[in-house]
């Protein structure tokens, strides 16, 4: 029931917006649908906490601690983003950047995007997971090109083609997985793609095929995570689309893609009995981290800056999942949570800042603290949080990852430390003048919707200081599930 609501509400929302067209109160309806979805997610959470892992609808859907926390996180960020997007998109349409027809598309696709992500998270079928991931790409392509500027069209095209090709690799990987599973689980193919069944027999799956499958799956879903060297689409799509979309792309889609990668890794590792998947994850993670920090220095557009920061943090999380083991997995899960909260908060403030300055170039954004103290402080705090300053939650997760790396993979520690240091210098050096610099702009009349920003930051702060015991249990259960060498 909860699951039906969880998946049905956003789908219904997409249909409603598609049929109703552009109403004046559409942003509010959007919030209502997102709120409903979030409540359904909460209800689901309560049920899972009470009853343990769930298998629903002919085993097609599966909820365990690992995806449950991502479901809740996704529904939550989707809700706060819809709150943020309400005034933001109003202002955009006042500025004439979007027409009512495009707003209708925007709201419809926003709900569809939520639906595909929740479907990807909850499904037990590796094939459906693929379908949902592809659906997530498709529903966001037209959102990225919402402004129809040359830049946004280019970004959309790149996004479509790169992710399309990437996801095609993942399909091939899925086919290989099915091929291996069919030998063990029988040819009728009803259960051979169900993750729970695969998990049960993973040690009997043919290792050579699974190794090949993992390469394709990692490349495929890794493209969507934004892992280097297939990260090119990510900064463009973030910079050229509307800011709420940048926030959900960064905060949610990357997480969901990483979730897919980790699900595959669990299976493959069980079959291979070797550290190949771990080493590949660590390698790609570190590569993304290093490349992203190097690119951070060259950015002039504020949204691109934070897009590269997302690649960096996804690299860290991937590296941590690669190390495996209860502590590193715990840290990686925590990192996914705090990153998605912090990054979406940052994009909210960046959106307001860019709207005020009328430009996304960092040189044009100055003196936010005098223009609007809340936006200025929000950006400052968000940046400090994402840079891993204590006492924010990112510090806790990064600290855990670093200490684990020192123990398990000492060779990687200097690389991690250097990358984090460079990223700190790059981002802080740019955010500081934006917040405290001189400005000649006048204060704008409308009040920014900063409730989501400070809610997010407060949660991140809380997670840095104190993780509630049930949440910690939850993470630990998920970490145990992911396992590792």
């Amino acid at each position, binding site marked *: 029931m909860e699951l039906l609501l969880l998946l049905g509400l956003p789908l219904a929302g997409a249909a409603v917006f598609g049929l109703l067209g552009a109403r004046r109160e559409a942003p509010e309806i959007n919030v209502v649908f997102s709120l409903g979805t979030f409540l359904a997610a909460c209800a689901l959470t309560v049920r899972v906490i009470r009853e343990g892992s769930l298998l629903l609808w002919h085993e097609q859907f599966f909820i365990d601690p690992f995806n449950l926390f991502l479901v809740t996180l996704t529904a939550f960020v989707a809700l706060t983003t819809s709150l943020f997007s309400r005034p933001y998109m109003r202002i955009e349409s006042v500025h004439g950047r979007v027409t009512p027809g495009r707003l209708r598309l925007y709201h419809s696709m926003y709900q569809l995007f939520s639906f595909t992500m929740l479907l990807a998270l909850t499904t037990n*079928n590796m094939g*459906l997971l*693929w379908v949902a991931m*592809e659906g997530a790409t498709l529903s966001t392509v037209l959102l990225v*090109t919402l402004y129809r500027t*040359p830049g946004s069209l280019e970004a959309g095209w790149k996004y479509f083609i790169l992710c399309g090709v990437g996801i095609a690799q993942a399909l091939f990987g899925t086919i*290989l997985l*099915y*091929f291996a599973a069919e030998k063990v689980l029988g040819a009728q193919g009803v259960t051979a793609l169900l993750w729970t069944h695969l998990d049960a027999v993973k040690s009997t799956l043919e290792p050579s095929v699974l190794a090949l499958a993992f390469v394709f799956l990692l490349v495929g879903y890794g493209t969507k995570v934004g892992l280097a060297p297939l990260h090119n689409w990510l900064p463009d799509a973030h910079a*050229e689309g509307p800011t709420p979309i940048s926030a959900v792309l960064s905060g949610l889609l990357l997480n969901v893609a990483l979730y897919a990668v980790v699900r595959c890794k669990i299976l493959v590792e069980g079959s291979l009995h070797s550290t190949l998947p771990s080493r590949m994850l660590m390698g790609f993670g570190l590569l993304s981290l290093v490349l992203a920090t190097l690119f951070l220095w060259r950015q002039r557009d504020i949204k691109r800056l934070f897009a590269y920061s997302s690649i960096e943090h996804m690299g860290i999380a991937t590296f941590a999942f690669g190390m495996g083991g209860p502590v590193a997995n715990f840290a990686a899960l925590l990192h996914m949570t705090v990153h998605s909260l912090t990054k979406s908060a940052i994009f909210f403030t960046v959106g307001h800042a860019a709207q005020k300055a009328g430009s996304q170039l960092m040189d044009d954004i100055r003196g936010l603290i005098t223009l609007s103290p809340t936006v200025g402080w929000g950006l400052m705090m968000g940046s400090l949080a994402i840079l891993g300053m204590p006492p924010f939650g990112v510090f806790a997760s990064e600290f855990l990852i670093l200490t684990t790396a020192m123990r398990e993979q000492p060779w990687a520690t200097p690389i991690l430390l250097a990358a984090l240091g460079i990223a700190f210098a790059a981002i802080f050096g740019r955010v500081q003048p934006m917040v405290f610099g001189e400005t000649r702009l006048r204060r704008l009349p409308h009040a920014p919707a900063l409730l989501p920003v400070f809610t997010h930051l407060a949660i991140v702060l809380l997670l840095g200081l104190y993780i509630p015991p049930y949440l910690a249990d939850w993470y630990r259960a998920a970490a145990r599930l992911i396992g590792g060498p």
Partner: protein
Amino acid sequence: MPQIALDQQLLDACAAVMLLLSFAMLSQRRIVSLVNLYAVQGGALATATLLVAWRTGEGHLYLSAALTIALKVIFLPWLLHRLIRRLEVYWDTEPLLNVSGTMLAGLLIVVFAFGLAQPITQLASTATRSAIGIAVSVVLLAFLMMITRRKAMSQVVGFLSMENGLFFAAMSATYGMPMVVELGVALDVLVAMLVLGVFFFQIREQFDSLDLHHLESLKERD
């Protein structure tokens, strides 16, 4: 030489035709012919699926063959032709990178694909397993086509051809994926094409052309 059954021979022929069509697409300059070649490739795929369905008696393969015909032989080519007419890129030809060079690269790719498919082929127990290598080649050749083309429309045909190859791989390795997945994939491809149709008009509106060199401004600047 051991006698090979007739349907096996026909299947081999379908596989060979698919590979041949991939090469033909790789060397085709005219966008209209490219779409036609894609339709023919869909036809070869559908024929192969029907043959396998008849041979194995797997009911869902008939359905998937019907889906292939409806979608890849009739609807998508029709949609693409319509787009070509509406966008007036009818006589669009594109200069290719040195054809012989591309072909040579294609041949190397086929050899690589064969190496890649070897372990799978050895493990497979389907009657069609010998076609796995060809399916992988079709996928990689489509990939090569996407890399070497500059027009948006050709890249899309490359993308679709890649999907053909994947479908063929699934069929020859495991007699197709579970029905729900196949339906989902078909739906995604359909939606992708519709989204692209919208997208093309947007690009066209903005640049008056579907040439992708307009879309090269977002680069890392110093």
